[in-house]
């Protein structure tokens, strides 16, 4: 069956990096003045060529893209033929609006995957339109790439595309994260979690008998994690449970019939939400009221952060009070295979040091099943 791929290049992505800007959102003119050169086109082309050279299945693909520098040029240069231009730029300079308009067309055409070339900003623009309706795969070309939708490099992205087209990869959660650029240029630094998109992930296999394996879906794995957490809540009935943010934890909460805020921190006591979407202050108050607390975290984004990205409400003070031994980290094996470390960057040297000393944490990867994962506390 023919696969439909929406292809979009953000031609200005990544230009801010070499000239010391933290992105190009709203400051492209400044970047160009500083001498920034486009890099996205080459990255996109490299990926497409890699994809074609190794894998001879491009005939099964139908490409939908934007005119000129936003995709058409790269596809043609790569020698691909089955291309439909679904969007023409309104002016020579591309903006977020163009990306979003193109995505509306992709939705209309019901593409199977959106392959884009850009950074966190581009991923966010796409996500704002397609939400979790279409899986997204990013060719890394931005200054910031915290979102969990990118391949590690062009080569890896080409390979993922190939595996997806061959149905060897499946669809799973991928966080969309981005720096708040306005705050950042003012010297404040905050990576926000914007939402949970669909990305493509390695399926999980379980051995069901001698030499036989079954591939299980991401949801089936998360069902197991849910059972695990339910047991934990049951066993520790005198504990307050803080549910962290991210797709995996959101799924667990929903399945446990706990009303959860996808991007925020919620507190659960005796299976009921006591407070939701908490900020630091309110968490600290809760900690006074409930002396026994367990915190459920999951690695988020491309780098697998459990603390320090997308959940700054969980301040060092809070983590110290809860205690490292009361943190439960859950993750699908697929997620762990793409981020082999748990990254921690709390902004507090003493606390980061505690994590560094701990060296590793046990991560729950199935029902009553865990594995050891190293902790990385270096700043990135």
């Amino acid at each position, binding site marked *: 069956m023919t696969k439909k791929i929406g292809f979009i290049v953000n031609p200005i992505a990544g230009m801010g990096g070499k000239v010391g800007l933290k992105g190009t959102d709203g400051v492209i003119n400044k970047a160009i003045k500083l001498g920034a050169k486009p890099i996205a086109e080459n990255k996109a082309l490299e990926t497409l060529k890699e994809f074609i050279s190794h894998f001879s299945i491009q005939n099964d693909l139908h490409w939908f893209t934007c005119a000129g520098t936003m995709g058409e040029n790269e596809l043609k240069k790569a020698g691909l033929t089955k291309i439909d231009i679904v969007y023409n730029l309104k002016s020579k300079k591309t903006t977020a609006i163009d990306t979003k308009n193109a995505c509306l067309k992709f939705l209309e055409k019901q593409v199977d995957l959106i392959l884009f070339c850009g950074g966190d900003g581009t991923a966010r623009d796409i996500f704002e339109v397609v939400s979790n309706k279409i899986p997204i795969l990013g060719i890394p070309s931005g200054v910031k790439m915290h979102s969990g939708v990118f391949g590690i490099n062009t080569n890896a992205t080409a390979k993922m595309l190939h595996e997806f087209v061959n149905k060897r990869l499946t669809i799973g959660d991928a966080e969309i994260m981005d720096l708040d650029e306005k705050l950042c240029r003012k010297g404040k630094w905050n990576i926000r979690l914007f939402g949970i998109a669909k990305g493509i992930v390695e399926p999980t296999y379980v051995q069901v008998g*001698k030499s036989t394996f079954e591939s299980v879906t991401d949801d089936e794995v998360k069902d197991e994690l849910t059972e695990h957490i339910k047991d934990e809540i049951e066993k520790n009935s005198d504990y307050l449970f803080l549910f962290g943010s991210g797709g995996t934890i959101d799924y667990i909460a929903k399945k446990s019939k706990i009303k959860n805020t996808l991007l925020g921190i919620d507190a659960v006591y005796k299976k009921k939400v006591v407070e939701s979407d908490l900020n630091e202050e309110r968490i600290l108050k809760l900690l006074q009221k409930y002396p026994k607390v367990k915190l459920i975290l999951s690695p988020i984004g491309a780098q697998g952060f459990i603390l320090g990205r997308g959940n700054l409400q969980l301040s060092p003070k809070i983590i110290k009070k809860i205690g490292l031994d009361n943190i439960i980290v859950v993750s699908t094996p697929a997620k762990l295979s793409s981020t082999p470390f748990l990254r921690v960057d709390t902004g507090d040297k003493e606390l980061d040091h505690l994590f560094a000393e701990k060296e590793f944490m046990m991560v729950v990867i199935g029902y009553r099943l865990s594995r*050891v994962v190293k902790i990385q506390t270096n700043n990135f």
Partner: protein
Amino acid sequence: MGGQTLMKRNATAFLKNEYEELVNKNLDWKLRILESGSTPHSIVDGKKVIMFCSNNYLNLSNHPRLIQSAIDAAKKYGAGSGSVRAIAGTMKLHIEVEKKLAKFKRTEAALIYQTGFAANSGLIPQLVGEGDIIISDELNHGSIIDGVRLTKADRAVYKHRDVSELEKVLTDADKKYRRILIITDGVFSMDGDIAPMDKIVEIANEFGAMTYVDDAHGEGVIGPEGRGIGAHFKIEGKIDVEMGTFSKAYGVVGGLIAGSQDLVNFAYNKSRTWLLSGSHPPAVAGAQLAAIDVLETEPQHVKKLWDNTKYFKKELESMGFDIGTSETPITPVIVGESSKAKELSNRLFEEGVFALPIVFPMVARDKARIRTMMNAGHTKEDLDYTLEKFEKLGKNLDII
């Protein structure tokens, strides 16, 4: 009332449906039929082939002493044992095998199970329960995994053969659990590498954890006289449970555990698989007894197996094949993509060499392979013929 009742449901439609689904996905087992014994030259599906996928490493299944001992036992004690071991099925012969085995393994005691699978699935769930943890190598074999699933214990996996990761898991588990059980394969059947059992035992002792090794592919193969992994690392009697099988190198059938008398007393009183299946027929016990005897008195079989293995590995390597990190008579010939492995296996079969492909997800996608298992009964001519075919086809298929 009376008259026609409505059909509630089709009680058995799923049998056909599910089977057909497997067939459609090409996931059904296509059974290959041996028209000969499991011999170095076998007749498989009507074709004469050199056998490279049997576990009959030492060719003991064809050894005259085993065959004679089976016949003698059957003549003397009959075809069946009449009962489960616990009630009236324990014959003197069974006890004799267990005593001889313990002596051979240099352990205090041993116990025979109906199969290796029965040993794992029967014993593991008794060793641990709720509030305990099983720590296992991530690449453990299916029969261990099934045993582990039957328990209420928590589970943690560590990276393949990585003792430092194991130590980390132990550090974490130490505070939280009552009993800790470390389980690993002795010889890993996909890659032919060996678990670092000496180090595992050492670290287990530090933490007060039990050790359990499934040595199915090591029994009769590694260690002096083929006495298995304990002997290989010179730690006989120090592994809490040395589990193995009579169905591979020993050339018969049946599972075994070797360890302390306490272990054996506990195991046969608690393993449901042991308690609830009939004991081995006298012929099986007779052959088992002879198998141990042959291992003790005829060192040439183990030696031949290793000579063959070393020669075969050396030649494959010099041809330019990637043969992985095997340390045992299991030699994987890594070819890359799954399709290539399947193709090579088919062509080898056409040429009279029977070796199975192992493909994703049993091994990584780009590490599909032909798994060859050496046999002490192979002659140098057999190996040269096989190597020649590997070389020819390897070149044809752009592997070397």
